C-alpha cells in the first residue's frame, strides 16, 4: 500500500488491554527487590498450621489463629495462608545463610469491609547473614520506600509487635495532607524462628519485612475503596494501562 493511500485511511488503533493494578504493583515491588539483590521464591496458598503459625512463633493462644480470623479448610487440617511468611519458612529450611529471599502473592483473612478483604496480596522479604542488625534493616527500608514514594518522602519507624520478629517496627510515611500513613511492617527475625528453621541463631541473624500490596496501590494510585480492585470493572482496569 502506497503512503498516499495510507494517508487516506483512518488510523487503525489496536487497543491494548491492561495489567491488573495489584499485579502491577506486586511486580514492581518484586522487581525492585530483585534489583536490590533478593531472590524470588514461591509457596502454596493452602498451608499447614505448622508453617503458617507454629514455625513463626505464633502461639496457639494468639488471636490470629482463631476461627474468626483464619480460614480453615479440609476439616481443620489446613489453613489458607494468612501471610506470605510461611514461604519464607520454606525458603529458610532449603537454604543456608547468607540468603535474601522474597515472596509475593495472595493471602487470606476472615475480613470483609471497605478497608479489609478476605483475599489480599503481600510481598515479604527476609535476609539472613552474620551480624545483620536493625540499622541495616532501616537502610533497606529507606531504599524501598524512597523507590516507591519518591526520595523526598518523610518516614518514621514505630515499635510494633509481630511474633516472628523482635524488635519489630511499623513504618509510616507523611502524606501531603500531613497525616502519617502506615505502609509496612518489619523487624529483626526472632531467634526462635531461626532455630525452628535449623539456623544457628548464635551465629546468624536476619531481618524481615512485609508490605500489603493493596495498601501501597491505594496510597499511590489514589483508590479509596479496596473493593474497587476486585470488581473486574473494565472502566476501572483501563485506567491502569
Amino acid at each position, binding site marked *: 500500500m502506497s503512503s498516499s493511500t495510507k494517508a*487516506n485511511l*483512518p*488510523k*487503525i*488503533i*489496536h*487497543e491494548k*488491554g491492561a*495489567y*491488573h*493494578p495489584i*499485579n*502491577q504493583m506486586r*511486580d*514492581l515491588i518484586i*522487581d525492585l527487590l*530483585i534489583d536490590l*539483590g533478593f531472590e*524470588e521464591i514461591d509457596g502454596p*496458598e*493452602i498451608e499447614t498450621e505448622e508453617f503458617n503459625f507454629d514455625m513463626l512463633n505464633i502461639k496457639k*493462644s*494468639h*488471636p490470629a489463629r482463631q*476461627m*474468626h480470623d483464619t*480460614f480453615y*479448610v*479440609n*476439616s481443620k487440617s489446613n489453613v489458607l495462608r494468612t501471610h506470605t511468611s510461611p514461604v519464607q519458612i520454606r525458603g529458610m529450611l532449603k537454604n543456608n545463610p547468607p540468603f*535474601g*529471599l522474597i515472596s509475593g502473592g*495472595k493471602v487470606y483473612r*476472615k475480613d470483609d469491609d471497605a478497608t479489609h478483604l478476605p*483475599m489480599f496480596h503481600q510481598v515479604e522479604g527476609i535476609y539472613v547473614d552474620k551480624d545483620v*542488625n*536493625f*540499622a*541495616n534493616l*532501616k537502610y*533497606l527500608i529507606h531504599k524501598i520506600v524512597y523507590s516507591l514514594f519518591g526520595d523526598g518522602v518523610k518516614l*518514621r519507624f*514505630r*515499635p*510494633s*509487635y509481630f511474633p516472628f520478629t*523482635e*524488635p519489630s517496627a511499623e513504618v509510616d510515611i507523611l502524606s501531603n495532607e500531613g497525616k502519617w500513613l502506615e505502609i509496612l511492617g518489619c523487624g529483626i527475625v526472632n531467634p526462635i524462628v531461626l532455630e525452628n528453621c535449623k539456623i544457628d541463631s548464635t551465629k546468624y541473624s536476619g531481618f524481615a519485612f512485609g508490605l500489603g500490596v493493596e495498601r501501597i496501590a491505594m496510597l*499511590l*494510585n489514589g483508590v479509596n475503596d479496596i473493593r*474497587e*480492585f*476486585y470488581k*473486574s*470493572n*473494565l*472502566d476501572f*482496569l483501563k*485506567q*491502569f494501562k
Partner: protein
Amino acid sequence: MKIPYADIVKYIPEIPSIDAISEKLFQLGHEHEVEKSIFNIEFTPNRGDCLSLIGILRDLALFYEIKKDFPIFPDKLEKLNLNFIDNTDNTCTFITFLKIDIDDKILDYKDCLKSYYEQTDNLKNNFFTDISNYISYETGQPTHCYDAKAVGGKISLDLEKGKHNFQTLLDENVELFGSNLVFKKDNEIINLAGIMGGKSTSCSENTRSVLIECASFNPEAIVGNAIKYNLKSDAAHKFERGVDPCCHDFVLRRFLKLVHDHANVKNVQIFTKGNSAYKQTNIKYDIDKISKIIGIKPSEELFSKSLTKLGFKIDKKLIHVPSYRNDIKTLNDIAEEIARAIGYDSIKSIPISIHSNSNQSKNLNQNFLRDYLISKGFFEVINNPFVDYCNEYSIEIDNPLDIKSGYLRTNLQQSLIKNLLYNERRQKDSIKIFEISDIYQIRNNEVFNEKVLALIVSGRVGKNYLDFSKIVDNDYINDLFKDILPIENIKVKNILREDLDTKLKNKIYYCEIPMNDINIENDLVLKNENKEFLKIKYVPISEFPSSNRDLSFSVKNKSKFKDLENFILSYKHDFIKEVFVFDFFDNKKNNEIKIGFRFIFQSGTSTLTDIEINNVMKVIIEKSITIDGVSVPGYEV
C-alpha cells in the same frame, strides 16, 4: 483503650503537654489518637501490661519521673473460710477472693472514682461493680464481684463441656457450647470465667456483702470465647493478653481502700490459692549482643538506666524481668526495650548489600503471557477463590464468610463468567479478560493446587473499523495462541447463555490452560518496565449509564479527510467518554470517503438526557461541516 490526659499528668510532676506525651507514646510504639484531651490508644497484643493507667505510667517512666500515688489498705487481712475447688488442669495460676461487708450508707463518689465516671463515657452500675471497673482501668487487673449472699460459701472452677444456658449480668442469654471455663455454685454456672459474670450472683445497688474474685487465668483458657458468644468484655481482652500474676495483693488492697473511702467497712477477709509458685524470668546481661541486634552500642548507663526505669532489676550477670512483663523472654526483647528508649528514628541506618543466587523473576512464562494478552486487548482480572458450588474434588472451607463462599474453586470458569456479565451489564460490547491464578483440589485426602491461565471473550473483536463488525469465535482464540502454544493445549469452550442471567445473544468463549503446559521460549520474554504505573491517579468511575451516538460523514474533498478525523478524535467534552472510527469506505468510483464515528457519552454526575447529548452532537456536526467537502448525509442546517 481510653485514658484521659488529666489522669496521666496527675502522676507526672513535670506536667508535660498533650503533644509531648503523644510523641513519647509513639516512640514507645503505642499508636493512638487524641480526642477531647483523651488518649485513645491501641496497644499491640503483646503489651497486655499497658492496658491500664498504671501500665501506661510504667512505660512513660522511661521519660518522666512518676509519682506513684495509689494508696492501699495497709492492715493485715483475716483469712476467709471459703470452700473453693479448682477442678481444671492449670487454667488458673493464682486466684484470690476478698469478702467485704459494709454498712448501708454509701457516700457520693469522690477523687479518682468521681473523675473516672465524669471524664469518660463509662456508665455507673452499682457500688462494687463501679469500683471493680475503675480498678481494672487503674491497675489492669479485672476483678469480678459476686453478691456474697447469693454465692454462699462454696464455689468451683470447672472446664465445662457441652450445651448450657447462661444468663449474663447484662441480662443476655447465651447458649454455651464446646469447652468453657466457668465458675459454678453447686451445679449452676455463675460466671463465664474471665469474660462475664452471671445474673444470678451479680451485685446490685442493694449489695452490702461482696465476694471479689481476682484471678490470673492462662490466656489459652480464655482466648476466643468472648468473640464466640459475641460478648464485649474488657476482662477477656485483658486476660487474653496476660495479666500480672503477682498483683493480687496490691489490687485487692487498692479495691478495699476505695471501698473504705466511700463506706464503713464492717468485715473483710481474704482467700488465696496458687497452683504453682511464680517463676521470674531472668535474662543474661549481654550488652554486646544487644548492640549486635540494634546496630549501635548503647552506653552502659543508658542501658541500665532505661531498664531500671521500666521496672527491670539488673545485677552483674542477670536482668530480672518484672512480673507484669510477660512479653519479655529473650535478649531480643531486651534489645527492643533499649531501641524504644533510644527511639527507633534515632538509630542511624547502616548500609548493607544483599547477595542471592538468582536475580531473575521466577514467573517468566507467566509474565510473557500477560504481556502478550494485554497487547491483544485483554484485561487482567483477579478474583477471590471462594465459590458456592462444589464437585467431588472441591475443598470445603470449615468456617466460610457466608454460605456463598463455602468452597475453593476448582476452575476459573464461573469467576470469569461473573466478570463478563458484570461488564455486559455496564454496556460493554467487546469483552476480553483473563486471569492467571491457582485452583485447588483434594484427591485421596491430599490437597493440590495448580496455576492456570483462563480467558473469556465475547462481542466485537475490536473497536477499530476493521474489527468492529467481527465477532469473536473459536478461531479467534486458536489464532491468538497458534504462534506461542501447541494447538493440542488449547481447548475452547462455548459457554451457553441459556444457563446465565442475561438476555444478550453474543456467543461466549472460554479457555483454561494449566501453566505447566505452557513453555515459552526464553528469547521471547521481555521484562515489563512499569515504573510509570506509580504516577497513575485513579479517577472514580461514573455509576450513571452511558449512551452511544453514531455519526457518518461524507468527505468529497479527500485531502481534507484527515482534518475531519483529527478534529473528531481530539474533540473534548465532559460528557464524551470515548470516540472512535467504527466504519470506513473509500468509494474510488465517486471519489468520496464515507466515515462513521461512534461517540460514547457518560456523565459522572447524572444520567444524560437526549437533549443534552444532541446539543453536543449538534456542535460537533456544525464544526465538522465547515471543513471543505465534509457533509452529514440527511443533516440540514
